[in-house]
Every structure is written in C-alpha cells, then in structure tokens.
C-alpha cells in the first residue's frame, strides 16, 4: 500500500475478478466496501491463532482475544477522535447502534415529547424513532429537504422546541451525498436542550472525524462500509450521556453482580454490550481503520472528492441523465445518484452489470426522500479508496449505452 486509487488496488483481491466477461468495476461501496488483504488476513489470523471468548476466559487464548478486542476499541477511539475508550460501544452495525440508542431514549420519553429526524434519513435512522415515538406517545417531526438536497435549517429552527428530546440526522446522505452541517445541528439542538444522534454510516468511511470536537451525543457507523468486516459497528456515545442511560438489552457481560430479582450494571462500555460481542469483526475493524489511517483520511477524502467531481461532470454531459443531490463536490460525499430517461433504475443496474459495473439501484432505504424527489428510485455510483478516474470514465461510457438499450 502506497497510496489511494491505482496504488492500493493490489491490496483488494476481489478487484481482480472478471464479471460477465468484463473486469469488475465496483461502484457500490456506500452499500458495502470491499476488503483489503490486511483486513482479511487479520480476521483469518485471529481465528487461526487467538480465538476464544473475551473477558471471561482465564486461559491464554481468552486473554489474547480480550487484548485484541479491547485493543480494537482503542484503535477505533483514536480513529474517530473520541476522548475516552468508554465511549466506544461495539454493535453489530449502524442499525443496531441506532436501535440501541432509540430503545434507551424511548424509556425516558413522555407523551408530548418530540423527536426530530430529517427527510433524507436512511430507514435505519427513521424507523427506530417511529417505533420509539409510537410506543411512548411522542411526536416525530422531520426537517424538510430543499433545493439540490439540503436540509432546510430555518425549518429546523422552527421545529426545535423545549419539547424536543432528540435530533437524529445523517452526517452524509446515502443518496444525495449531502454533507450536513453537523456542527450547527449539534449546537442548536443542545441550545434547545435536546440530545443529538448523527448517523455516520456514510461519514466515517470517508471523512476525517473529530467526534470530541463535533460534540454530538451519539455517532454511529458500520465496519463493512469502511473496509472492515460485516457484523461489526460502533456506537460512539459521550461518556456523560451514556452514564445516564439504562441499558437497552440484558445478558451476560453487561452486569457486575446479579441476584435473582435484580442486577447491578457493568461499567461503560460493557454495560451496552450484552452477550458475546463481534470479536473477529472488531479485530478486523481495527485493521481497517489502521489501513485508512495509513492512507490518511484527508487524502482519502480528497481522492473521493476528485472521483465524485469527475463523475458529476461526465454523467452531467450525457443527454437524458438526471443527477440528484448537490452539484458541488466540495460539499458532497462519495456518492452520485442519477437516473437515465426511460430506464427504470433496476433495469439500468442490470444493464451496467452486463458490463461488469456494480452500482446500486432502488430507493436506497430512503423512501421518504424518494417521495420528496417524486421518483421510485435512482441508480447510485459510490466510491472508495480503490476506485480510479478510468473506472468513472468507463461508467460514463456504459451509461451512454443504457439509454435506448431496452
């Protein structure tokens, strides 16, 4: 590994695959990124040499596994710029992390309380709040999306009130690519006395993070979108906030002492990690954040910004192509959503797949946003460290052929 783009492609074994007779062009990293050899070998090495259950095994392997698992926590803490290791809770993914917070917060909701989401949320950052509000008589409000895909911050100001208990917003939209003004969302929410959860599923893989500086109470992300394994994710929670929450789920490991009718909770972060955690996933995630750390997240972000700019430019020149989301790559994550006139997105994706190009198609788990845009779905190209300008050019050539192909 010496750099981004062409320089790191050899680290990703899957990129040498041929799909439908064409070299694979993988443009679906926003759904799930590919894995470098360093991550794959770390996970298999863990299983081959050090696997045992963590925390409760006194034997040598148990201690090694515990060291590796807790070491992963320290590596993730450093990567995201959190102050304390107690603030890093391993989960199965972003979805579980958000549900965990929603269930904890739901217990404290009273009728008349309100939660604010946005119209651009992934279902993962919407449905858990719908459920929490439904079960506790709270109201759910949504910040509208305006213009090329920006949050209406004036409307947000009007929605905030003393009734607002929590604000849940994406760091980066998984469809529009919009990088939301999280600092402003955090400060205005805190002024109103509300907690803030930022869904970082599309932020952590692409942007340099300073969670202590950002000030959000919760930040959630998944390992598999950032070169790591599936089945592991992270809930970052500010220590002083986590300390006030009752755990969402019970089980082994999250307790200090148990009687038949009650129990005393364990310390942070284990209080929120009942059962055997995703040990191999966490160990693999450490390898992933170390890989990204060596590349440098500023360099990763600049590389992906360049690919996004090239993609917006190339697709924007094709007749019949509609682009969604901000046109300015400086304020946009590594996704480009688009449609081709007369072609359903699923047909477009199937036609591109015939050329070995993997893109996402559909509603991207953001149906309220699709309704706001007045469409059923879109095609979506998304980028990671291993994509190249040549791949963007081949995408654009293939998209030209999609129109009129059916």
């Amino acid at each position, binding site marked *: 590994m010496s750099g981004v783009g062409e320089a790191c492609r050899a680290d990703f074994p899957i990129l040498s695959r041929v799909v439908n007779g064409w070299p694979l062009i993988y443009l679906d990293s926003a759904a799930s990124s590919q894995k470098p050899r360093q991550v794959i070998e770390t996970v298999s090495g863990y299983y081959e040499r050090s696997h045992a259950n963590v925390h409760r095994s006194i034997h040598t392997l148990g201690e090694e596994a515990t060291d590796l698992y807790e070491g992963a926590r320290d590596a993730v803490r450093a990567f995201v710029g959190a102050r304390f290791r107690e603030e890093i809770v391993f989960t199965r993914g972003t979805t579980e992390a958000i549900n965990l917070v929603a269930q904890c917060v739901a217990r404290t909701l009273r009728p008349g309380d309100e939660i604010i989401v946005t119209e651009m949320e992934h279902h993962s950052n919407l449905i858990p709040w719908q459920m929490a509000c439904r079960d506790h008589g709270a109201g759910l409000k949504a910040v509208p999306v305006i213009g090329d895909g920006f949050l209406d911050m004036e409307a947000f100001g009007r929605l905030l009130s003393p009734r607002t208990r929590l604000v849940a917003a994406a760091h980066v939209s998984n469809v529009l690519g919009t990088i939301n003004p999280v600092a402003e969302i955090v400060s205005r929410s805190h002024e109103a006395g509300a907690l803030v959860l930022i869904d970082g599923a599309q932020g952590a893989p692409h942007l340099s993070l300073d969670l202590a500086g950002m000030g959000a109470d919760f930040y959630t992300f998944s390992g598999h979108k950032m070169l790591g394994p599936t089945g592991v994710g992270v809930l970052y929670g500010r220590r002083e906030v986590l300390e006030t929450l009752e755990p969402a789920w019970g089980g082994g490991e999250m307790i200090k002492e148990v009687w038949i009718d009650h129990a005393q909770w364990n310390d942070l972060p284990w209080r929120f990690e009942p059962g055997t955690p995703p040990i191999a996933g966490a160990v693999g995630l450490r390898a992933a954040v170390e890989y990204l750390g060596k590349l440098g997240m500023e360099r990763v972000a600049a590389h992906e910004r360049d690919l996004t700019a090239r993609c917006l430019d190339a697709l924007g020149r094709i007749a019949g192509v509609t682009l969604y989301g901000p046109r300015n790559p400086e304020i946009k994550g590594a996704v480009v959503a688009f449609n081709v006139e007369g072609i359903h997105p699923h047909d477009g994706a*199937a036609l591109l797949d015939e050329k070995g190009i993997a893109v996402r198609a559909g509603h991207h788990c953001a149906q309220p946003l*699709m309704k706001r845009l007045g469409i059923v*779905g879109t095609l979506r190209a998304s980028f990671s460290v291993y994509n190249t300008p040549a791949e963007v050019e081949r995408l654009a050539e293939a998209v030209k052929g999609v129109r009129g*192909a059916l």
Partner: protein
Amino acid sequence: MVYSNLIRERFRHPRYRGTLEHPDAAFEDVNPLCGDRIRIECRVADGRLADARHRGDSCAICVASADVLLERAIGEPLDLASRLTAADLLERLEADVRASRIRCVTLPLTVLQGALDGREVAR
C-alpha cells in the same frame, strides 16, 4: 440474457397496459425491494376473467411480466387465472431472470390474485 427480445418488446409496447372503466375488481401492491408499484384492474363475466389492464411505475421485467400474465389469463376461468405461477410467466418471458429480480416477475401474479380474491373493491 436478462432482457430477452420479448421483454424489450413488451416493455416498449405493452398490449394490456391501461385502465378499465368500471372494473369489477382491482388490486395494487408494492415490491418492497425496489418500491415498484403495480395496479391491475379486472372485469369478470360468467366466471371468467373477461378483461384486465395493468399500470404502474415499474421496471421492464415487471411490465413485461404483467403484460404476458394478462395475455395468458384473460378469457380463462377465475380459478385458473388466479393459479398461474412464476414458471408459467418465465417460460413466456424467454428470459434468464436471476433470483434478485424474481420478485419483478411475481409481483403482477400476486396483484392479480389479490384482485381476484376481492382484497380490494375497485375504485
């Protein structure tokens, strides 16, 4: 090949796309994977599916599937029309539809069955 000539032809020029005036039965449903929506309206006479039309916002495979389904079902007794299977459609579509797109083929089947089961009164 995913897109057979028949799928392309029926997507471009569906024969049974549209609406019926005063349908006896109608139903619509959504494919949760992609958000595609299709509606089928039916006219029933003498225990047979006398006529039917489909409409909606859906992909080429779904449009073609709905079209060959109605072509096959119109004129048939209701119990036969509501018992048609994905295999019947796949054969007519002349296409190698992958598992990830099979719901595009079967959505019109379940919508027609819903209409004939009277799950929704025609609007």
